[in-house]
């Protein structure tokens, strides 16, 4: 499996955000996307998952499931948590596992992994910023999808949780997954490729 972009461009709100971006990521590889604020990191991830229109160039997934589109094989973790405050933590996660993958059996295990098992019956409204982020990460574990698109995944996580996320990402790569992550800090994966946005322009 190989995700490959050539000469990709993106326009938002009538302005060109970036142009001429090319990269290729193979199964088992990670790509960190870096750049100053406003360089277009979030826009690139949203473009890959199909939430922003491609403004030029080509984006292709080679060797994935041919019946599914790219966005159906990808997990997107953005700045928002997609949680309903009135549902409990467990209900929120089970809903997304059923909706995204058809199963809810892994949900309990995923909650334990991110350290939220004790809060399973707790309304999501009461979670702190980092707890919400952990719950989003549990979604990645509850449903298996090969491509992870992570937008500043470590922000608001405490150091334990950051290290744990590093471990989860390494395991995902070892299992043949792909990771693209936008970040300003270290992610804890060795040998990740790097894409710098908005440098010379």
């Amino acid at each position, binding site marked *: 499996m190989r995700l490959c972009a050539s000469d990709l461009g993106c326009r938002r709100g009538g302005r060109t955000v970036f142009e001429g971006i090319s990269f290729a990521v193979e199964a088992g590889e990670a790509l960190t996307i870096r750049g100053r604020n406003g360089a277009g990191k979030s826009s690139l991830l*949203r473009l890959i998952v199909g939430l922003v229109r491609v403004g030029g160039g080509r984006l292709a997934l080679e060797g994935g499931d041919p019946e599914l589109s790219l966005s159906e094989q990808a997990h997107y973790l953005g700045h*928002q948590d*997609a949680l309903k405050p009135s549902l409990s933590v467990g209900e929120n996660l*089970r*809903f997304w596992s*059923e*909706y995204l993958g058809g199963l809810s059996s892994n949900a309990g295990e995923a909650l334990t992994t991110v350290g939220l098992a004790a809060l399973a019956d707790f309304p999501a409204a009461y979670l702190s910023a980092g707890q919400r982020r952990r719950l989003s990460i549990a979604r990645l574990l509850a449903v298996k999808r090969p491509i992870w698109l992570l937008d500043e995944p470590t922000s608001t996580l405490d150091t334990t949780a950051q290290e744990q996320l590093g471990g989860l990402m390494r395991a995902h790569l070892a299992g043949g997954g792909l990771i693209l992550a936008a970040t300003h800090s270290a992610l804890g994966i060795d040998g990740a490729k790097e894409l710098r946005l908005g440098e010379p322009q």
Partner: protein
Amino acid sequence: MSALAAMLARDLRVAVRVGGGALIGVLFFLVVVTLTPLALGPDLALLQRIGPAILWLAALLANLLALDRLFAADHEDGSLDLIMTGRAPLELVVAVKGLAQWLTTGLPLVIATPPIGLFLNLDAKAEGALVLTLLVGTPGLTFIGLIGAALAVTLRRGGLLLAVLVLPLTVPVLIFGVAAANAAVMGPVPFGTPFTILCAFTLASIVVGPFAAAAALRQEME
């Protein structure tokens, strides 16, 4: 299939939970119906004459205003992004959300109509006709409303704007709904004629609504 069932279950659950809107539509309906005679003054014959029209108008408003956050809420908390990455066709997902919405606002409205009709001095026959037309008509309103709810996502403004966009589309449902209810009570047209047209409109909107709403949601993603 299970993705759609999950969506239905979630939307129903959110609606009946604390903070959900399940019964608020009915309350709004009740309040509007109560206010009308207050504004009109106590004239029972007049109330009886315009009763069906008032109930239909109140049902229309309650139905549409309850819709405003249907997609906007999912947009604001990022759920919509994830919904788009699901494997179920967006049209079906939208239709399922419409169904959940109708079950939690439209249906309670229909059930509440008989007691509320008493305030407007309606007789049993008029009530029966009203309940039947509302039962058939409210799904039509909800599914037309889906279009507005989807448009409201881009416009970042629900409530009134939605109502303004969608109300003109609901005019046929309103006209034939009231016509059927009145026909049952006063004639001279037979009840069947406007009622059949009402059914046809509802069926059409159940088909068109989800497609148009899904298209609007796709456009809005940018």
